[in-house]
């Protein structure tokens, strides 16, 4: 084995330079040139300041905004530097209690909604940074948002429909609504009464 160490050392250094410096730096250069916005985090700027990334979920708590899924990222949720899920197993009482509390909170905030509660709205995602909710979860919040903004449900619903993305290529993944983009559009089209 020892006489293999010298060629091994040289080979390792060559491959390290090739795959650890040349390759990632070449990709960085190409991506910065070809896909500048996406390579730099798909950030969204409103009035010259960055309000978030369209790919990274953030919290909304006011009644006039659509609310995202609960988040287990970091201590307070939605921590962009501590992605992760709750890692609670299906038989864990902590999970059962947490979901129960979320369901109760939802019903308190949306008293007029009586349909079945969509699973995504009261469960945490794997990343804790899920930027989307399901169309059903948006639907469940329509009444509340409309009331808070003094609008009709139909006005809001048409905006939600416009923001609903279908399955990719018609069969991949699930339909979804990007919460941040929807809320920004809400503010743009129907400024909240203050």
């Amino acid at each position, binding site marked *: 084995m020892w006489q293999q160490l010298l060629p091994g050392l040289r080979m390792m250094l060559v*491959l390290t330079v090739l795959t650890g410096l040349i390759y990632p730096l070449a*990709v960085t250069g190409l*991506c910065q040139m070809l896909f500048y916005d996406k390579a730099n985090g798909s950030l969204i700027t409103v009035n010259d300041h*960055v309000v978030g990334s369209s790919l990274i979920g953030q919290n909304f708590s006011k009644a006039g905004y659509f609310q995202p899924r609960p988040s287990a990222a970091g201590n307070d949720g939605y921590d962009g530097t501590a992605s992760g899920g709750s890692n609670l197993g299906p038989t864990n009482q902590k999970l059962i209690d947490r979901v129960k509390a979320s369901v109760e909170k939802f019903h308190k905030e949306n008293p007029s909604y009586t349909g079945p509660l969509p699973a995504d709205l009261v469960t945490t995602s794997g990343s804790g940074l899920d930027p989307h909710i399901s169309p059903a979860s948006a639907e469940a919040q329509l009444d509340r948002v409309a009331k808070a903004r003094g609008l009709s449900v139909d006005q809001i619903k048409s905006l939600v429909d416009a923001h609903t993305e279908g399955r990719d290529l018609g069969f991949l993944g699930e339909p979804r609504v990007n919460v941040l983009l929807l809320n920004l559009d809400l503010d743009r089209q129907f400024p909240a009464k203050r």
Partner: protein
Amino acid sequence: MTWSSISQTLAVLAILVAISKPLGAFMAAVFEGERTFLSRPFRPIEHLIYRVSAVDPELHQNWTAYSASLLAFGLLNFLLFYVLLRWQNFLPLNPKGFPTLQPDLAFNTAVSFLTNTSWQSYAGESTLSYLAQMLGITVQSFTSAAAGMAAAMALIRGFARQGTDRLGNFWVDLTRATLYVLLPISLLGALFLCSQGVIQNLRPYPQVTTIEGARQTVAFGPVASQEPIKLMSSDGGGFFNANSGHPFENPTPLTNLVEMLLILVIPAAFPCTFGVLTGNRKHGWTLFAAMALLFSLGCMLTAWSEQSGNPALKISGGNMEGKETRFGIAASAAFSVVSTASSDGAVNSAHDSYMPLSTLVQMFNLKSGEVIFGGTGSGIMSMILIVMIAIFIAGLMVGRSPEYLGKKIEGKEIKMVMLAFVITAAATLLFSALPFLVKLAPGSYWNPGGALTSNLGNPGAHGLSEILYANGSAVATNGSAMAGLNANTPWFNLTLGLGMLIGRFLMIVPALAIAGSLARKKRMSATIGTMPTDGVVFMVLLLGTIFLVTALTFFPAFCLGPIAEAYQIK
């Protein structure tokens, strides 16, 4: 099981079938040094690498020299990566100023990537500098994958050659795997992923103020360059803690499909390469079909179990805890099977939050020894070893001396196969049992929290599953986790590190010994008494052997983990 999960599983398989044949033939040509369409641009670079490394590409090695090269290369990579992790605070490209890694974590991480496992006791975005990610993780993904492919080629040559003890040159195979296969696909993959939203930059983490006035810091980094090789290498160590569940690693359902394909593409092409080089393509396709069947079965079971949801939560729409909205049940379930079957271990959802039946599927995939497509290179090796057991059992049943592709399978080969299987199975079970037996006081160096069971993220049978999963994942060099387990203590970092070394090298070295022994043997032509190694009958025999070996070894452990938990669901 829904239409959506059936169509996504079928799409993965159909594309794999379409790619396997040309890619398998291409890999066969590359490793045999024939001209391909990439020769013109890359041949000069290849020769430059040999010159700089002082390697004679014409010199073929016997199995001991080949193993020695592979082990020496592994040792050197370990040392380089270890030093890089310990000194990252002194080195550039560390915008967040992350400190050095503790020795036990640096050991575990270096072993983890060198063995192509990528078990992660840490969270990438809060631990590693950009330099450690690029020069450490990305490089190890490339080289460990290339080393695995090289070893697989040596084993294949054991069947393809006769009357020689030479299996090829490790350095040549390593270079060719990197240059002609891994780098080109990675480059294309990186550009595609970036075009869909995967980030690629070296900037500091930006801080944003949301419209409600909250502050959020967003982790950045050179992700797109690492993502495809992370997947294709069957390495699977995420740039971020959430791995392919993080929107910056896997932003859309389309990238999700591409990522699943990247994971499976090389392992799925290897049976074809094996068929081409041994002149028995039918055998290659029979192996592929067995893999595809087990894979589809796993996808369907998992999708059904997740779609049925968690009755304790009393909500509609399946078990969405730990899953992303854009993927939903079907694409998450499929990814979890791809991840555990392939030995990749990249995840797009939290495996700790899956239903018990899904956990059982995942554990079966891990513990059947990565034969369902399996790892890059290591998958076909494990499959060939288990085929030997199947042929040996069949030989015993009919009283004929077993033959595999014209090579007599004798005592020496079977001893090596059993060595590989028994040691890896014993390591998994022993390291899983120890945490429940060893008593540690609070404040102990090995586990500051005291009892090792206090590191579990969940109580009861699910907690046992976390430990079983962790060790199964380490020994199968998979690297995915039921992440509720806090494994970042010296005890787990050390035992999991040992598990990975055992799972990697005590599989590869016996396989190379088998290759050395087979290459010497004359290939005998098939007679009327030779058991065919293609077709449905052989496939059933093979599947039976896989179930038998896995079930006999792990059924009691499965009973205490996922099966017990299934009965606790109310």
